[in-house]
């Protein structure tokens, strides 16, 4: 399971965290239902560069609503495919 964590602290919230979450939620349902977990965080200690988004171990700063789709395609989907590809090997 790939996890996307979006910061919803004051500063990220004012910069549109709820729309960013909504954007990810729509994309997950359409393209990778059940494979990505969406979570919130109260602070990623990067308040000056919101909205902060963490995918796996990487933190992305300054994510705006219009960036959501590209972040999803470039970073989330590959991670999902990588994990899905790993699964059969584990079973063997």
């Amino acid at each position, binding site marked *: 399971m790939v996890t996307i964590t979006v*910061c*919803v*602290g*004051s*500063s990220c*919230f*004012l*910069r549109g*965290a*709820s*729309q960013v*979450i909504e954007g990810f939620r729509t994309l997950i349902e359409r393209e990778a239902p059940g494979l990505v977990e*969406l*979570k*919130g*965080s*109260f*602070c990623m*200690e990067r*308040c*000056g*560069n*919101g909205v902060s988004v963490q995918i796996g171990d990487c933190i992305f700063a300054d994510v705006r609503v219009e960036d959501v789709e590209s972040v999803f395609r470039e970073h989330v989907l590959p991670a999902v495919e990588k994990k899905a590809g790993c699964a059969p090997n584990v079973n063997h």
Partner: protein
Amino acid sequence: MGRLKAEVAVAQLTKHGEELCGDCVEVVQDASTLVVLSDGLGSGVKAHILASMTCKMISTMLRGGLQLDDVVDSLSKTLPVCEVRHLAYSTFSILRIMPDNSAYLAEFDNPAVFLGRGHELLPLERESREYAGRIVKESHFNLQDGDWLVMISDGVLHAGIGGVWNLGWGWDRVGDYLKRVSAWEEDARSLADQLLETTKKLYAGKPGDDATVVVVKIRVPRRLTVLAGPPERRSDDAYVVRRLMESQGKKVVCGGTTSLMVGRELGRRVEVELGSLKDTTPPTGRIEGIDLVTEGILTLTKALDILRDGVPRRHMLRYRTDGPSRLVSLLAEADEISFIVGRAMNPAHQSPDLPSELALKSKVVEDLARVLQSQGKEVTVTTH
């Protein structure tokens, strides 16, 4: 036992066709609680003037340390005489609860005050004494957690007269009603509203007299501690978190960075409840052992707005799940609130591209404290 909280609620009906209520209630709560109920002769303007003068004079003079006979004497010399009835008359009931939970009751011509413990009515031993020519019934007693007192004007007893009840609702039946209702109406406000609502129904919506209800509920004070903002010096983190955890009563953490600090100090996970996220309000969170975790400044500001607009009824807020409503709900039910405010600056909040909504946290907490104090709550604010 420590000092108990006396929660007071007043509800009134005005006689059908009148603009002013001829009953008056004065409540003063400081170290002690003083409640005065007066019913002026007749109804409308005249009754209103008599009753308000009586209330005001009694509460002011008693608090100034005067004895009851002086007060009654002054009343009979001061109240204007009615042209029609050639009388200067108003009833009164005085309830005074001292910090040691002892109570004094003085009643003159009002229906007897009900004293209840749990779901039972307790008999009050009353002694009659003459004060400046008037027979006043006095009683002294001690109050416990869970006790309640109900003061009414005779308009409540007369409810339904000639209709539902030949002779009106009557003291015994009102008493039976209170025993039943007190079982499910837990706060003073609801009990007062419930009793008055039934009075109104018995009058078929057209009260034949002014009717007043005062409910006083006695209970252990509810405490609440709110931690908002990390302290200025990081070395104080452990101290403020310990103060929060060692406080009695419910605990609230307001702020993203603050919740991380609490999680770190306690070694517990901080989870965000994304379901409570709305476009206009940040979501709430969860830390084991903390009753409510919210975002900071926006939630506090919204809570202040709700409080300033006047909290609806408590149980209306109870079913809302957003952070500000849950915070207001906890603040509303608390009697003693302690805010621990950290002064650490979040540099990101000074950024010019953010709206000015990010006001200073300490300023918002100060305003919150002032509003809550005006509602009779004991509020302390400490900064670190």
